[in-house]
């Protein structure tokens, strides 16, 4: 596990054990990813990993009786990543919301480049028969004039 020397491995292991006691069964990859995320947050905030697990949002995840282990693991990773990448997370959320508002045909997939590094958007779809293709092409017209990337990045920087 590549973690900073000022964050003792025992601290990371202790935090991961706490996560597992809450019902998450962590495989090797989960341990590497969550351990790394905890170390990065700990280093940024100058705290120990077990203190991060005391955050209200994280305690709520770990104590949530409605979620199973794998669900808790997924949400925990997402929350820690969002903590480390708050601006990117806001952009991603804005992009997803704008896309949902367009109500495109369910077969259409619209993606941005990793971390919005490029202004391009990729569109892909599969179809069966001329009718479905016609419906998809009609739906694609909703993308005309939309500024998905620009709007997402603007939303990310406007935190008011």
């Amino acid at each position, binding site marked *: 596990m590549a973690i*900073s*020397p000022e964050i003792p491995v025992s601290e990371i292991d202790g935090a991961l054990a706490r996560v597992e006691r809450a019902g998450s069964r962590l495989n090797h990859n989960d341990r590497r990813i969550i351990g790394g995320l905890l170390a990065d947050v700990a280093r940024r905030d100058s705290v120990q990993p077990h203190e991060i697990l005391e955050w209200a949002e994280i305690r709520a995840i770990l104590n949530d009786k409605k979620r199973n282990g794998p669900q808790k693991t997924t949400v925990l990773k997402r929350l820690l990543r969002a903590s480390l*990448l708050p*601006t990117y997370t806001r952009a991603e959320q804005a992009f997803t919301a704008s896309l949902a508002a367009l109500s495109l045909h369910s077969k259409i997939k619209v993606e941005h480049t990793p*971390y*919005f*590094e*490029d202004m391009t958007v990729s569109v892909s779809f599969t179809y069966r028969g001329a009718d479905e293709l016609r419906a998809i092409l009609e739906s694609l017209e909703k993308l005309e004039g939309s500024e998905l990337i620009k709007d997402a990045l603007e939303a*990310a920087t406007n935190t008011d």
Partner: protein
Amino acid sequence: MLWKPRQILIEAAVSTSPVTARIRDHWPDIPVRHVERIRDFSGDLGRSDLALAAQRGQSIKKCPGTTAYTCCDYYVLNLGIGCRLGCSYCFLNHYMNTPFTIYANTERVIDDARHYFGAHPARHFRVGSGEFIDSLDFEALAGVHEQLVPALSELPNVTFELKTKSDRVDSLLGLDHHGRTVISWSVNPEVIREREEVLTPSLAARLAAASRVVAAGYRVGFHFDPIIHFPGWESAYKEVVSAIFDLIPAGSIAWISLGALRFHPDLKPVIETRFPNSRLTTGELIRGLDGKFRYFITIRQQLFAQLNHFIRQRSPDVPIYLCMEGRDLARKAGVSGL
């Protein structure tokens, strides 16, 4: 100079070169080992050793830039590899077991430059010597640029740039440069220098050195690189811009570049291990199109737009360009390029 090598290895091919003689004169007490080729030396070698080697490969290369981002069409003179300044973000921190190497056959570099650039007389080249070494940190000792500056100044289609954080400019002041040499300083706010560039001269010392070379007729450049995003960055960088323009006439500034922090993922554990006080790895860093860590795009845009604004408040026409970024971002930040 505080740094002293543990030993000096000298390749046979450069044993009589002026650079070798000068370094040996400076450090008569340091143990010397004569070897045929450094690469064949089987003994213990590391960052505390100095190797004087012969440049056998291409001494002039196109700047490697980085994949997927715009290149500024720069050329690099490879005069050695290594730096004793030890800045936390430097890619040279990858080379833990490589001795500080200086290519001591400067005449070969000069010949290469004459051939390479002479073959394309209609093209203008920007070439620099500060990619793998600090151009000036070792200059007082090695005297490489004392040969290079006059020699390259005879090439009318070449602008030769020395990039440095050093304030050691004495040896440059009397050289014939014909206005074709630019001395450039990498700059950052003092708070960043104190934490991430601990062995480097202060910003004030660098600017005082810049002022001296301007008085000697050189043009100068400034590289805001790497720009660091931290609480209070705006006022800190504004102060740096003010300090530059308060001391250096805008007409003497050949260019200013802007480059935000970026580093190879392998460097992250190195920074965290070797520089425990560094805060570089705690920023909002994503993996860019080239795989390197860099700030999320909106943060970079803010950094560049604000720096561009600060500079433009002081000079409407000094050339500003972005280093290793995309054209879209340059446009959005309002940076026009060289």
